[in-house]
């Protein structure tokens, strides 16, 4: 099953690159640099999914104390950190030619950086505690508190004056995005979700082997 998921993810990523570079048109104002969106947006949506699973696993672990939930939370957090880092780096590279700067302390950028630091802290905390039960309990509390930042990241562009553009696909009302660009984004989003599922399945299996 995991192997099939891996192949589906690989095919999805190939389709995503073809859609982003071949099918989607050159954006009228930004030009080709807008194609970074097919990497940047699916990455942050995957990170939201990962940290949502950390929240789920953390609540379920505190309620049941079953180690499987802790393994889910820890594995999802690690992969979420990876995708958040990709989001920040790709956004920074996109920002230079469009905003004229690699970084600015804009509400969206700052809250995303805090999101990354919170979950890096979550992983560091896990490394510091030897007792599995205590580790799971402490990490679950951080996993639940850390999830408070997810809506802050998403709605920061609405709540504060920001340089970052508002949401175009998860915002209120119909999306103003061009259908071809929207389709390329959707293909990449699916590909990233498949890749996340593949990484998660493998990481959980490794966590299970480490405990035996």
């Amino acid at each position, binding site marked *: 099953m995991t192997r099939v998921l891996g192949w589906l993810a690989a095919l999805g990523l190939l389709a995503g690159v073809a859609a982003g570079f071949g099918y989607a048109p050159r954006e009228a104002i930004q030009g080709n640099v807008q194609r*970074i969106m097919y*990497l940047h947006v699916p990455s942050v949506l995957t990170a939201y999914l990962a940290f949502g699973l950390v929240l789920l696993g953390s609540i379920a672990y505190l309620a049941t104390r079953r180690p499987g939930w802790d393994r889910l939370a820890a594995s999802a957090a690690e992969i979420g950190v990876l995708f958040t880092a990709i989001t920040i780096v790709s956004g920074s590279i996109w920002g230079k*030619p469009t905003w004229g700067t690699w970084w600015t302390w804009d509400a969206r950028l700052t809250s995303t950086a805090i999101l990354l630091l919170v979950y890096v802290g979550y992983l560091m905390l896990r490394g510091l505690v030897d007792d599995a039960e205590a580790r799971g309990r402490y990490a679950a509390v951080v996993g639940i508190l850390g999830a408070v930042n997810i809506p802050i990241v998403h709605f920061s562009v609405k709540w504060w004056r920001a340089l970052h553009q508002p949401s175009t696909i998860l915002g209120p009302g119909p999306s103003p995005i061009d259908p071809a660009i929207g389709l390329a984004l959707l293909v990449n989003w699916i590909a990233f979700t498949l890749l996340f599922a593949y990484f998660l399945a493998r990481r959980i299996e490794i966590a299970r082997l480490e405990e035996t």
Partner: protein
Amino acid sequence: MPANWSYVLAAYGLAAVALFGYWRHLARRARALSARRGAPVSYRTPHRTPS
């Protein structure tokens, strides 16, 4: 707006390196754990010198 292909390549290149690197890390870790579990007992137990 200039083509800015270098920025696009940099973003996708770095992401590819990160994702491929993580995939390799998972594969190596899984192989190491499987080898440890599947290895003969003599590989896992400390070497005993004959008395």
